[in-house]
């Protein structure tokens, strides 16, 4: 591995991570259907959909929810290419490990023989198909929530949902400072690249990476101490108080009514 390649890949990775977040932030603020909903309503309704996706046993219901999520993506003016790219990054990670064995180990009617030995059963294919669809639906709904909700509003919604304040505050600060540390790490990589001619061995790169990680950790510890003092300075007494500036409007009620109707229909189809 050459030094240039190793460093260039890391710098590109950091930059890409930052760009990706910026794109998401911008999409969450454009005037689309989901962006216009109250974040609390969005969190609750999409979470309910995800729970129902877990309960659903039929392909038509899961396909209908997938189509619904794609319609919402369109109504929210999210570029389809970006959406599918993010969706299909995760699906193999979450499903392959479980879905592939299920094809072969689920007993039932033989459907296909692989290499003359392993047999894919009809029931196995159905189980794997349902699993892939469930994961796709859940990820699609989750992505919809993340892409159309500014991170700050998402935190306010979590606070409103009574998630412990400490957890929400830590989430908020982690997100805030990860960018600063990413910038620091990026600068360290660039500083090394600017003094690099030729290549390094893998062992040298690993040693340098270890030192860089340690330095970043020491810096983050110093930063956390200073941040704590800055919070104390402005009156922090153990729990962060915030202004809640959310309000539910007509569009939210329409969406809630639609969600309840759709979920009732799903429930009816499951238990009829």
């Amino acid at each position, binding site marked *: 591995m050459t030094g240039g390649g190793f460093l260039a890949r890391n710098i590109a990775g950091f930059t890409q991570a930052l760009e990706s977040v910026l794109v998401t932030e911008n999409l969450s603020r454009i005037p689309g259907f989901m962006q216009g909903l109250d974040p609390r309503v969005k969190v609750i309704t999409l979470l309910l959909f995800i729970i129902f996706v877990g309960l659903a046993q039929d392909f038509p219901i899961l396909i209908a929810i997938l189509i619904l999520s794609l319609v919402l993506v369109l109504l929210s003016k999210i570029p389809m290419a970006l959406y599918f790219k993010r969706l299909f990054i995760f699906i193999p990670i979450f499903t392959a490990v479980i879905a592939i064995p299920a094809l072969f180990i689920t007993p039932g009617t033989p459907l296909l023989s692989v290499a003359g030995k392993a047999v894919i059963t009809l029931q196995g294919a159905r189980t794997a198909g349902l699993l892939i669809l469930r994961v796709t639906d859940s990820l699609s709904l989750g992505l919809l929530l993340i892409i159309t909700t500014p991170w700050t509003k998402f935190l306010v919604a979590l606070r409103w949902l009574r998630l412990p304040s400490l957890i929400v505050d830590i989430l908020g600060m982690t997100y805030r400072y990860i960018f600063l540390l990413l910038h620091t790490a990026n600068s360290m990589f660039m500083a090394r690249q600017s003094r690099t001619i030729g290549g390094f061995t893998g062992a040298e790169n690993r040693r340098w990476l270890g030192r860089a990680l340690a330095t970043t950790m020491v810096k983050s510890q110093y930063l956390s101490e200073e941040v704590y003092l*800055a919070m104390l*300075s402005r*009156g922090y*007494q153990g729990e962060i*108080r915030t202004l809640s500036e959310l309000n539910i409007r007509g569009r939210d009620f329409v969406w809630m009514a639609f969600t309840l109707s759709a979920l009732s229909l799903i429930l009816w189809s499951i238990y009829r």
Partner: protein
Amino acid sequence: MSSVDNTFIYSAKNLDYDYPGGIAALKEICFDIGAGELVALVGANGSGKSTLLKLLDGLLFPTSGELLAFGMKLSEKILETGSRAVDFRRRVGLVFQDPDVQLFSPTVWEEVTFGPLQLGICREEVISRANEALELLNIVNLRERPPYLLSGGEKKKVSLASVLSLRPQVLLLDEPTTGLDPWSQGNLIDFLLQWADKDKVLVFSTQDLDVVEEVATRIIVMGAGHGIVADGKPEEFLSDSDFLLRNNLVHEHSHRHKDLVHRHPHLHERSHEH
């Protein structure tokens, strides 16, 4: 809390501060600061200016000696909780040197509302103060922005707004002009001079003697030995090149005047027309 002379906003008596491990940061610091004073803390790097500002903000506490603020001896116990702690935090605001330390909230709006909310100020008043602070610094357009998307100058302004929303009587600024372009520096100086009045106190650390001359009514010079080496009116010291050179406040180095390269101390003098 000890009963003391209430004439001064701050009164430091033989104040020492050691970092953990016994490394001295401040030695035998004595001064009184009254209402209406605009105090510049100057001194070379590592002379203890930032540490002193943190002591004045009740974030660090003297190893020995005592520091009084509004007639109250500052101690960890007093500033931990309770009405005296809240009162002190409402009256004193510190703007840190590194804005990334100060800007820990997810958006500019949450940053500016943070202080008043923690100090129990009612919702309507918090909103009014936050809007006022954003307008004062002309950064209303940044309201919904996350801090990591701000430029260095914008971060400095938001840091200042986040403290101004407390409407403090005492404003402590650690190197406020560092990293600002000349235009932003000028704006900041204008703002500070408008903000100041006979009831308020400004204490700021700086390396920039032009800013001292333009803003301060008093200068406290910290020496390499972590003590105060001079305390008085800026004009008494700023024209004394030997004093400035001795305390590393000016430097003698080679520089160019057209085709001539030569050495002499650089003073803070800057010619301008009225």
